[in-house]
Every structure is written in structure tokens, then in C-alpha cells.
């Protein structure tokens, strides 16, 4: 029983630390793509945490929506944003060449 509790504490502690660390990295890493990947990892870790909190229903929702759907949205938005930025840059280059 004792070891179980200690193990559980260890597990919970690791999980919580991992959550905070992932969130911190996701919000501060210089590269946006890395940030999003870290955020998806954060979402999956959240799903684990929900499991530990005896909330399998939320764990499912978090994995599917919080990590999956949101992650997909973020990635596609980043891709389109980069496209846009490239196009704007090209326009600017064309502009300067014209001058």
C-alpha cells in the first residue's frame, strides 16, 4: 500500500512537472512549429492527467479535440501564415526591384 501511494505521488508529480514544462516550452520556444508540436504533446499529457483524475470521458475529448483538432488547426494555420508571409515578402522584393 505504501509503495503504491509513493508510486502514485511520483507519477502525479512527474505528470504535473511534465505539463508545466511542456506548456512553458510551447509558449517560449523561438520556432513556432516546435511550439505547436510541444503544445500537441501538452494536450496529450493533459489527456493522461484526466485519466489520473478519474475522468476518462474528458481524457477522450481532450485527446481528440484539445490535442488533435486544435493541433491540426494550429498547424494548418501556421502553414497558411507562412505562405502568406512568403507572398508578402515576394511582393516587397518585386516592389524594390521595380524601383
Amino acid at each position, binding site marked *: 500500500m505504501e509503495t503504491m501511494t509513493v508510486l*502514485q*505521488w511520483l507519477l*502525479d*508529480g512527474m505528470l*504535473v512537472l511534465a*505539463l*508545466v514544462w511542456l*506548456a*512553458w516550452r*510551447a*509558449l*517560449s520556444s523561438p520556432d*513556432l512549429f516546435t*511550439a*505547436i508540436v510541444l*503544445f500537441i504533446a*501538452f*494536450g496529450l499529457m*493533459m489527456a493522461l*492527467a*484526466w485519466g*489520473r*483524475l*478519474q*475522468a476518462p*470521458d*474528458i481524457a477522450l*475529448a*481532450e485527446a481528440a*479535440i*484539445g490535442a488533435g*483538432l*486544435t493541433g491540426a*488547426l*494550429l498547424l494548418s*494555420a*501556421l502553414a*497558411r*501564415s507562412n505562405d*502568406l*508571409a512568403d507572398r*508578402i515578402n515576394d511582393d516587397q522584393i518585386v516592389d524594390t526591384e521595380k524601383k
Partner: protein
Amino acid sequence: MNSILLYALAGVGLFTLGLYALIVHAHLLRKILAINVMGSGVFLVLVSLGGRTPGASPDPVPHAMVITGIVVAVSATALALALMLRVQAKTGQTLLPEERLE
């Protein structure tokens, strides 16, 4: 001190972390991530503090609330991303212009 409280504290920590990032970072995508992290923090607090008597069968009400919250959060994220792309298309930037002097 039990593990439930640990998660609640983590939730508060995530909320604060997100709030800090929301204020500090200029890039819109980063702000959207920050909002999502804040949301996750709130959800953690809601569920971990919701089951008030540890060990008893989990309270379904916070679960329903959090699932609703996750759906709302993803809708908000989708809207925010769409808006960010339109801002970028119009202004060429993924930042909000500094507040003009009011």
C-alpha cells in the same frame, strides 16, 4: 496535501503561465497558444477541486462542464486563427499594432 491538490496547483500554475505569455508575446499565434494553456489550467482546477471527497465516485457535473469548455475553446481557437490569417493578409503582420495613445 494530496495528489488532487497537486493538480489544482498545476492548474493555477498553467493559468498564470498562460496569462504571462499572453501579455509578453506579441505574435498572435503565441497569444492563441497562451489562451489555450490558460484554458487547460482552468479545466484542471475545475475537475480536481470539483471532486471534493477524494476516493468517492467522480462528480459528473465538472466533467460535463469541462467537455463543454473544451468544445468552446476549440471553436474560439478556430475563430482566432481564421482572424489571425485575415489580419496577416490585410496588414502583412501577425502582430497587433501597438495601442495608439488614447
